């Protein structure tokens, strides 16, 4: 290599060439694609994207469509329950696993394996287990409780909780693993000090360890929240959005309008709303996480 420095643009050429796929993905697909969708959500596109500007009409129609409103409500119920339950369960499991127990690997393998399975498989298994004719309901009735009712897949009022059970089964293992990694990162001296001071274990967790694990909690929260907004396959497999529209979700609305209903404008508007929901979570996080780091 010669020591002279040629024009900046032509330095390091192989690296730039190698990065072309990344640059195209970042700029054209991710940024370009998102901006394109946002722009076309302001048009009257039906079967094909057409640049006929109609302002916020699509959004007005979106929010006056019952199915969309139900989708958002469902996402909210599912999201809040999922976050709280999976964090509580995941953390408790991680804390139990952190007690220097035997067979830790076995327990971890068992709790995490559903995460390796697809949402389609998850949805179909739980559809079967929750089947009122053969599943849990019929078994408990068989034990003598003949009026027992638990049919979340046929009862519109509780259908979304049927999805929640399956979602928790699939996703809690991941949270446990991340929390366990966080717990292992805590200095053992802290535990000794708490012990010396006679602080009960549960108090040490609640007031010392959990606040110390804030970064782990926040990162996990962002990951899980972003994945909740995308939930789609699980619904398709387990209920197909039914009974009625009681388990519809935004991601399914987008797909159905874009590729089934031939109403692209609605699909674009709905997906833009989804993007907005994710940005509300991600931007404050990125600001805290990366903005703070640079200053520090």
């Amino acid at each position, binding site marked *: *290599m010669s020591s002279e420095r040629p024009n900046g643009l032509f*330095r390091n050429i192989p*690296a730039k060439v190698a990065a072309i*796929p990344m640059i195209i993905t*970042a700029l054209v697909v991710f940024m370009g694609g998102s901006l394109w969708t946002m722009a076309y959500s302001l048009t009257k596109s039906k079967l094909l994207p057409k640049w006929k500007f109609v302002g916020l009409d699509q959004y007005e129609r979106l929010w006056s469509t019952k199915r969309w409103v139900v989708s958002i409500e469902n996402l909210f119920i599912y999201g809040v329950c999922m976050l709280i339950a999976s964090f509580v369960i995941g953390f408790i499991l991680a804390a139990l696993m952190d007690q220097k127990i035997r067979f830790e690997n076995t327990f971890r393998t068992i709790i995490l394996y559903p995460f390796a399975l697809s949402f389609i498989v998850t949805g179909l298994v739980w559809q079967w287990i929750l089947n009122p004719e053969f599943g849990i309901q019929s078994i408990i009735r068989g034990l003598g409780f003949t009026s027992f009712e638990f049919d979340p897949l046929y009862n519109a009022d509780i259908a979304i909780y049927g999805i929640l059970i399956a979602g928790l089964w699939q996703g809690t293992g991941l949270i446990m693993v991340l929390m366990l990694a966080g717990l292992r990162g805590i200095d053992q001296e802290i535990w000794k000090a708490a012990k010396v001071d006679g602080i009960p274990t549960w108090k040490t967790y609640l007031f010392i360890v959990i606040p110390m694990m804030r970064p782990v909690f926040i990162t996990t929260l962002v990951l899980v929240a972003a994945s909740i907004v995308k939930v789609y396959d699980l619904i398709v497999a387990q209920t197909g959005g039914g009974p009625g529209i009681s388990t519809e979700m935004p991601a399914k609305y987008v797909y159905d309008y874009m590729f089934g209903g031939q109403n692209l404008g609605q699909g674009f508007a709905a997906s833009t709303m*989804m993007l907005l929901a994710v940005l509300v979570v991600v931007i404050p996080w990125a600001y805290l*996480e990366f903005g703070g780091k640079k200053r520090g």
Partner: protein
Amino acid sequence: MADTAVHPAASSEPRGPKPRKKLSRNNIIIYGTLLVVAFYYLLPLYVMVVTSLKGMPEIRLGNIFSPPVEITFEPWVKAWSQACTGLNCDGLSRGFWNSIRITVPSVIVSIVIASVNGYALANWKFKGADAFFTILIFGAFIPYQVMLYPIVIMLREIGLYGTLWGLVIVHTIFGMPILTLLFRNYFTSLPEELFKAARVDGAGFWRIYFQIMLPMSLPIFVVAMILQVTGIWNDFLFGVVYTKPDLYPMTVQLNNIVNSVQGVKEYNVNMAATLLTGLVPLVIYFVSGKLFVRGIAAGAVKG
């Protein structure tokens, strides 16, 4: 919480908690809870296995948890080679081979591209590289639904919409953020002296990549492979959007078989089909063990 003080004489002064019996109240709570949880997590797998081994009459009579009285493998055979989706009645095997045809090139292409990206970002920083990388990572959070249609248009423009290679490109694109992050972090953690020494010896971009970086990075390639194989095998949305019915991956075909409205529901065949579809990621999971955990934890490690 350690109860390892077996030899008090080993240390000069008494240390650690008092030695206590193995079955303390605490231990009962801990193991009891974990056993109940393990039971709950294993239940669906158990139900899948027993249902798939029963005949339909037995399913109609019994409950889903009872073990099969008469074990039959017919549901498995039927799921694999005769189950119907629409007019095709050649079973899940078609979906299986489609998934293989999709997964193999997608995994290879996505890992090759992402590893070179990560290498360029770690060792050959150029102006603006970090900006592109930041956008890429942000892209990982954008709901796919926002980009679905623009990608349809792009693929149509280059004539790959509805083809196998179109789907390979899509998987490469959406695997790129996490994989690039994974490789970048790994290459950054390698000693810089190696890279500098190779530079002094006159090795260029590709030579350093192939002769120094690649041989040292086998573990991270394995982690990336586990991540991608399970991720792509389990994909449903992209398979539905970007391929045609004769190329549908296994997950899509499975859903079409089980949730089809026509005909009598054959729960045993359905469960055999479900289990078959879950088998590949399950095998990978149980074989790879800790590496799988490393792969998913990588998603949580920020750059």
